[in-house]
């Protein structure tokens, strides 16, 4: 099953993300660094869970990824993670495999976008 990835492209809006952080730019930088460190671990955990058929763990990790990405209004990653969470909940490992690939691609595109937000912060 091949999914179009265009719907998972990220267009981050720095102003609206900052608004959700009460205008705190230092916090934005800190959260981006946290996310960049955490995302590979979550992906790793999801791969392992899928390999071992541990749908509960897969659902939990996908839910965490969804929550984490929603802090940056990264809707592409959020909807990919949400799809994977549903697949895991329904025990649909075939669909989950495709969803995980989509999510990984979305995160891969998201990370440099987030890094740009950090660099773009006025000193």
């Amino acid at each position: 099953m091949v999914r179009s990835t265009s719907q998972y492209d990220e267009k981050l809006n720095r102003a609206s993300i900052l608004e959700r952080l009460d205008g705190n730019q230092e916090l934005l930088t800190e959260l981006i660094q946290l996310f960049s460190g955490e995302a590979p671990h979550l992906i790793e955990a999801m791969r392992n869970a899928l390999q071992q058929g541990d749908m509960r763990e897969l659902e939990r990790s996908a839910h965490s990824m969804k929550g984490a990405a929603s802090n940056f209004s990264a809707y592409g990653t959020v909807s990919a993670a949400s799809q994977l969470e549903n697949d895991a909940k329904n025990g649909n490992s075939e669909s989950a495999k495709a969803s995980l690939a989509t999510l990984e691609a979305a995160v891969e595109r998201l990370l440099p976008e987030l890094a740009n937000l950090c660099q773009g912060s006025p000193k």
Partner: protein
Amino acid sequence: MKVLIADDELISRRKLQALLTSWGYDVVSVEDGNTALELLKAPNAPRVGLLDWVMPGKNGVDVCSTIRRDRPEPYTYMLLLTAKDAKENIVEGLESGADDYLIKPWDPDELRARLRTGQRILQLEDRLVEARETMRFKATHDHLTFLLNRGAIVDLLERELVRTFRERGCTIVMLSDLDHFKNVNDTYGHLVGDEVLQETARRLLASVRSYDFVGRYGGEEFLMVLNNCDTSQAIHRAEELRKAVANSPIQTSRGPLSATMSIGVLSSRDWNRRNAAEILCEVDAALYRAKASGRNRSELATPDALCNLPKVRQK
């Protein structure tokens, strides 16, 4: 104000913690529902909980319902934060005992305003509890001496008699009466009389153990209930109280005044199962004998001296 945050997801937890700290809250953050529950039940627990719905261990809804069941007081204000936004979810969350509900992604201004609402409700609750406790104290205490009032000390005596009988223990009951108190009021006025009553109350309280009870039974009568005290000590303990009042004059606004009191003493072990009214009748008769024998003394109520209340007792 202390606020507990429970969210298993690192970035959201850090965000909440940073924002709440910048708003002046004292934040405790945990990663799962079980730890949240433990901390919310602890003494001096945070009064506000911000709980993610989906968490390992107990989830946010479980935490809410458990706190409502196990910790009614002091009230904990709980706010669920979640991505679940279906109507049934909102209803389930609130039915579980949550006070409020915020759907992710939440807006910081809105969260801040809702936290202030929570604080307002907690302040309201604190004022109500304080008012209730003040009323409870007033309902059970004498307003002049701050000792237990007659209703409270007699209720307590009743409970102690039942307990002591069940546990085959022994309770000492004393009824004391200031001697010639009417003379103090007639000579120096009621204000000085009140000062004598207050000082007597203070000395009686200071002379018993922290787990004994002293109440104002009537005008110048005091009732003492001493637990786990043996018959052999009864008169000795009564004499200690009597001397605490008699041995040094009471300082009043009209100068030092000597006061003495007579005491009727009873040990529950000497009597079969009796209720408070019967016990009070016997100890009152012993007090009458102490008065009749010259006052400023203690008399033990023994079953061979039958309760025989005179119509008017000599003061």
